[in-house]
């Protein structure tokens, strides 16, 4: 499963908005700016059909570049193919323009530059610079071959400043906005993480409080009785109560660790005290166990603690996947049936005793 980080998602949204703005700008320029100029000077061109064809080639390059950019599928190869088509169309259109009027009637230089901005803006800045320089040089080359006087050079420089300057400014703006969006998204993400931490801390606090309340009910009175001398550690009943409380304390600690397979983990913790008493406990699982909710795990581990406390020397705990749930079973040499906690929370408990061996099953179903 792929997890999309909020940072990436958010800055991605802003970047897409900037991309759309650039697409609209470039397409608008080619349609209204270059297209308008082409129609205005229609009689001036030697072959209007050729200029129209070049305009169409440029329009197709812009359309293809836009689709690729919007889909996020623009590799360096495709970017440069589009850019070079624009450069070629621009140069051809300039070369086919009437010699003395080339700069005045040239619609293509601007469109070629904007096409470069469209496809190269998110690549290294040097690539765009090289491309814009190449378009300008190609146009200058056409002008030089047509004959270059001082007025033409001044016109060329004015056009260069006007069109290329605008293109560089837009490209720089997009890059600056990208950067700002990234920073904003990072800030938002850290705020999101802070919220999550706070929520987690609250869940932990509530769970701790619940554990503290549970101890108040069970372990605290026992400790108080032991301290006051009203409970005698020599009494077998008191020792059983101590063993049960010790197991519950271990389980409470285990419940704090929310790990995968929480139930198995908590059963291990519940078995710990019995094992210290010399009972051999084995725990086995069959199948990929479903997640069992906390309250149901409580019922199951309570049953485990009751049985393990009564076990004399051995106990086997198994967890098996059954239809829509899990069967946790206990086989132990308790010698008799054991008083088990009440079923509930979707857990049904059964037991059977044969020749001193107890079998009990706590079956949790999600239905």
């Amino acid at each position, binding site marked *: 499963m792929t997890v999309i980080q909020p940072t990436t998602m958010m800055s991605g949204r802003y970047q897409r908005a900037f991309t759309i703005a650039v697409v609209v700008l470039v397409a608008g320029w080619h349609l209204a700016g270059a297209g308008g100029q082409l129609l205005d000077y229609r009689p001036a061109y030697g072959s209007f059909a050729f200029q129209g064809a070049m305009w169409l080639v440029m329009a197709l390059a812009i359309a293809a570049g836009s689709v690729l950019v919007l889909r996020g599928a623009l590799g360096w190869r495709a970017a440069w193919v589009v850019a070079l088509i624009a450069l070629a169309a621009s140069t051809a259109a300039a070369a086919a323009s009437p010699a003395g009027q080339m700069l005045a009637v040239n619609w293509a230089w601007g469109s070629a530059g904007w096409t470069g901005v469209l496809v190269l803006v998110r690549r290294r800045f040097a690539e765009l610079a090289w491309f814009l320089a190449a378009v300008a040089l190609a146009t200058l080359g056409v002008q030089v071959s047509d004959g270059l006087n001082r007025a033409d050079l001044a016109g060329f420089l004015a056009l260069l400043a006007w069109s290329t300057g605008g293109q560089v400014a837009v490209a720089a703006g997009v890059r600056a906005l990208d950067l700002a969006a990234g920073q904003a998204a990072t800030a938002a993400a850290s705020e999101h993480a802070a919220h999550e931490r706070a929520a987690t801390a609250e869940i932990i606090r509530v769970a701790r409080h619940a554990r503290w309340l549970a101890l108040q009910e069970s372990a605290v009175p026992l400790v108080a009785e032991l301290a006051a001398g009203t409970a005698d550690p020599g009494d077998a009943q008191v020792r059983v109560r101590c063993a049960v409380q010790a197991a519950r304390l271990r389980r409470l600690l285990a419940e704090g660790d929310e790990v995968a397979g929480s139930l198995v983990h908590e059963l291990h913790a519940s078995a710990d005290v019995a094992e210290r008493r010399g009972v051999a406990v*084995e725990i*086995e699982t*069959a*199948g*990929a166990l479903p997640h069992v909710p906390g309250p149901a795990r409580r019922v199951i581990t309570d049953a485990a603690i009751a049985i393990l406390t009564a076990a004399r020397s051995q106990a*086997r705990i*198994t967890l*098996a*996947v*059954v239809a829509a749930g899990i*069967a946790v*079973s206990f*086989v132990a040499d308790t010698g008799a049936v054991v008083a088990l906690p009440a079923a509930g929370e979707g857990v049904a408990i059964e037991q*059977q005793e*044969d020749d001193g*061996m107890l*079998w009990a*099953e706590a079956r949790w179903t999600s239905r």
Partner: protein
Amino acid sequence: MDQQVTVVIIEDHPVVTEGVASWIRSDPGQRVRLVRAARDLTELRAVPRPPADVVILDLELLGELVTAQIPELVAAGYRVVAFSGHSDPVIVMETLDHGAHAYVSKEEGREHLVEAVLAAAADRPYVTRSQARAILADERPARPTLSEQERQALLLWFQGMSKASVGRRMSISENTVRQYISRARAKYAATGRTAPSKDALLARAIEDGVIKPGEILPYTSFARAAADHPSAGQPSADHPSADHPSEGAPGR
């Protein structure tokens, strides 16, 4: 049984071999005789092969898993009982699929190993708790379909009840419990790759009335398996590795 079952143990830890030998010695009926103990498979590959009914095979020899060598031993006519410290259901299933008769984990050895060897020698199913666990955990698409009763018997057996207690719990006789568990095992012998040991186990299960031919799905795979191995159950004089036409058979 009039004659003792002969057994070879392949085990790289001498202390385990000693333990197995002592379990065999302490069998009151003296039904099994350990004829050879080896630390790897070299001796079993020698020609002529040492005669024995059953091979007790430690699945990990000198740090390497040898489940893939089981077909070779089975093709040579030995019945294989895997005896391993691994209890991962995937390994158990692979071991059975390769044609081992039974799987006994090292924890189960004292209680089950001798009985598993005797069952294997007679081509009868023997299902340890670790095998029951692997069957219950099996979620492969090609697994055989078990009936509710078979599943329940396997579950209670895996949980640790004696077969008598399983019977009381399910209100059936202990013998019927054995029958359900054996039938589930026999169904596994009818799936996956073919092996002469699986054919022998199935044939014996049908003969014993544990399973009816119609209960084995798909039955065709059994018929094909028999055709692939006309010498099923007999020691083969051929080089064994040339005798696995069915590797990659459907159901894997």
